[in-house]
């Protein structure tokens, strides 16, 4: 494995916040994330009390429920040195939006702030904090990458996954001109306005297909599920995966998102 940051405390206790989608829809991303964090030298913890960061409530204007869920997450994770999520949008929720939820409550704001400061998205945590430059992974494919909106704009994630991909043997990146365009998911937005959301993901799918890549990679399961669903509905053969699966080397044994394949 590539260079690591040796200035860090030992052991580094990391709480893995799997996110509700990974937990329920695609556990293999959780296992891949765990593998990467352990290989980077972290001591991993997976608190059982975790469910969801509260975005569905928060983005619907239901701040009361969002607060209640935030309290759960804060209690479950505040004891660790770092909190890491394989999703830019869930990490951004904790980092940027929790503090605003408790405005006026000094104690909770302080707890949020402390959690906020140590919460990271997986791929950027591995490069920026742990100093990892590569995972000695192999993945024989052409791939295009989707920059998820929250990760890109709220967490500043752009170069980190690209640096990690560049070190994967056999992986050829084909950038799309629309890599930074929204896929149209937006959580409940895609449920409430399916036709509008559908048109956006159609445009996104056009751009993805235009790259000629065999695989679509990204760092957020919500967006990936949205795009893979549309690509498959259009009859595209493009396979969609979370980048953590490729880096951890679990991709070959795991069917791509939405694919059949009985491993159980």
């Amino acid at each position, binding site marked *: 494995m590539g260079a690591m940051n040796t200035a860090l405390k030992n052991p580094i206790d990391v709480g893995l916040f799997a996110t509700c989608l990974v937990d329920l829809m695609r556990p293999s991303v959780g296992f891949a994330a765990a593998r990467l964090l352990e290989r980077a030298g972290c001591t991993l913890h997976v608190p059982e009390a975790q469910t969801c960061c509260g975005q569905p409530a928060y983005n619907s204007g239901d701040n009361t429920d969002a607060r209640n869920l935030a309290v759960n997450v804060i209690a479950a994770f505040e004891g660790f040195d770092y909190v890491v999520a394989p999703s830019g949008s869930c990490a951004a929720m904790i980092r940027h939006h929790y503090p605003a939820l408790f405005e006026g409550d000094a104690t909770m704001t302080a707890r949020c702030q402390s959690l906020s400061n140590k919460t990271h998205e997986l791929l950027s945590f591995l490069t920026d904090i742990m100093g990892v430059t590569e995972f000695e992974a192999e993945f024989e494919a052409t791939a295009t990458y989707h920059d998820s909106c929250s990760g890109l704009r709220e967490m500043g994630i752009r170069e980190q996954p690209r640096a990690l991909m560049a070190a994967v043997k056999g992986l050829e990146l084909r950038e799309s001109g629309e890599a930074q365009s929204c896929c149209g998911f937006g959580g409940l937005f895609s449920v*409430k306005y399916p036709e*509008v959301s559908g048109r956006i993901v159609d445009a996104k799918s056009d751009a993805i297909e235009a790259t000629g890549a065999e695989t679509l990679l990204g760092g957020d399961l919500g967006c990936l599920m949205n795009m*893979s669903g549309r690509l498959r509905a259009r009859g595209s053969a493009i396979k969609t995966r979370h980048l953590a699966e490729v880096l951890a080397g679990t991709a070959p044994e795991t069917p791509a998102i939405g694919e059949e394949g009985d491993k159980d």
Partner: protein
Amino acid sequence: MRSTTRNFVDNAARGLADDKLQAALGRLSQGFPVKRLETISRLPEFEQLRDDAIAIKRHTLENLDSYLERYEENAKVSGAHVHWARDGDDAREIILGICRDAGAKTVTKGKSMVSEEIGINEFLADNGVEPIETDLGEYIIQLRDEPPSHIIAPAIHLSGAQVADTFKESHDELDADRDLSEPRTLLEEARAILRKKFLAADVGITGANMLIAETGTSVIVTNEGNGDLTQTLPKTHIVIASIEKVVPTLEDAATILRILARSATGQDITVYTTYSTGPKRADDLDGPENYHVVILDNGRSSLLGGEFEDMLRCIKCAACLNHCPVYKAIGGHAYGWVYSGPMGAVLAPALLGLGETHHLPSASSLCGRCQDVCPMRIPLPRLLRQWRRRWFETGGEDTKTRLGLAAWAFLAKRPALYRPLMAIGTSVLKLCGGGGRRFPILPRPEGGSFVDQWKRGKR
């Protein structure tokens, strides 16, 4: 202008199904955003200018009353009449009054979104004064009796061929077989017709991109020069501007101008930037004899000091529309009122109320691109969320969403209950092979919960 925002879902469906609109929206994506990127990449101090412009606007909003008063004083010194309009009714009456005093039969108009906001055209026409739009885009949609679909390019939803058809239908005194296939020919035809109107008009109405407090000047930016003719040829010039358009100094106006066109059309500067201060003076060669300014509030002052104040920094550049995936999917008419895109989705609820407009803040993926490109760095996603929160808290959200959220939140707060129940859900989904065609977004789940399996020792 009457809002149809309540029917957002149907409006949007119509936009999605309109092939000509979709083609136009495709052209829009390849136009303004690309040019914007080119021009700002040539200007290293662009980010600094944004910060400066934001500071100017913040300072002005904090002292809005005193800058408006200073503007009024200085405008009066130059001979202007300044009128304060609390709402659209006030503004319409004031403008009609001025037109009547001028004995006006026809009124030429420069492009002004505020005038659309108060529906002045319809009102004047109903009261026997003929309004004539002189901006090419506005002229086209006036002929077609359509509202603007974009705040700086009101006819962006139309193709050249559609405009040619409209001209042939409306200008029926001209040769029916003339060639209007080139954009230039359309512009020339409109110019020739408008020239007579300019000369005949008794009153000219323009908007204002800014009002400058230290000089009592109003500023408009245009690319066609029609604004200049509108405000200099008729005997009476009326400026209609909303309260947040005031800036303290000429220098401040220059700073904002440097980011306005770049963010809007990707031009370094618009073709015309016109400053007007009061009526024609004794030794001026041209200009109006009477100069009126109508300053409109229409609900904006209620945003001051509150959680939506940031919206008042908006300089109506339309960068947020041009980069919005939702706008580019459905077009501006779907928003059902004057303002569209992210800025419209924040502004319309403030001006029309949430009951009418609640779909707009909800119909966003909150991707954040608008905030990125907004020269004023207005936190549009945050403001959209705030409207969602208000709508939810006042019990507006529909029952299905409300119940669904409540049930889900109830479980998510109780991990011991949540996980086994969710496990049943995912097993069912897995058996079905995912959400299928109806819900392609829900793939076939892998099966099992990560947290459970981890607990049982699986690695």
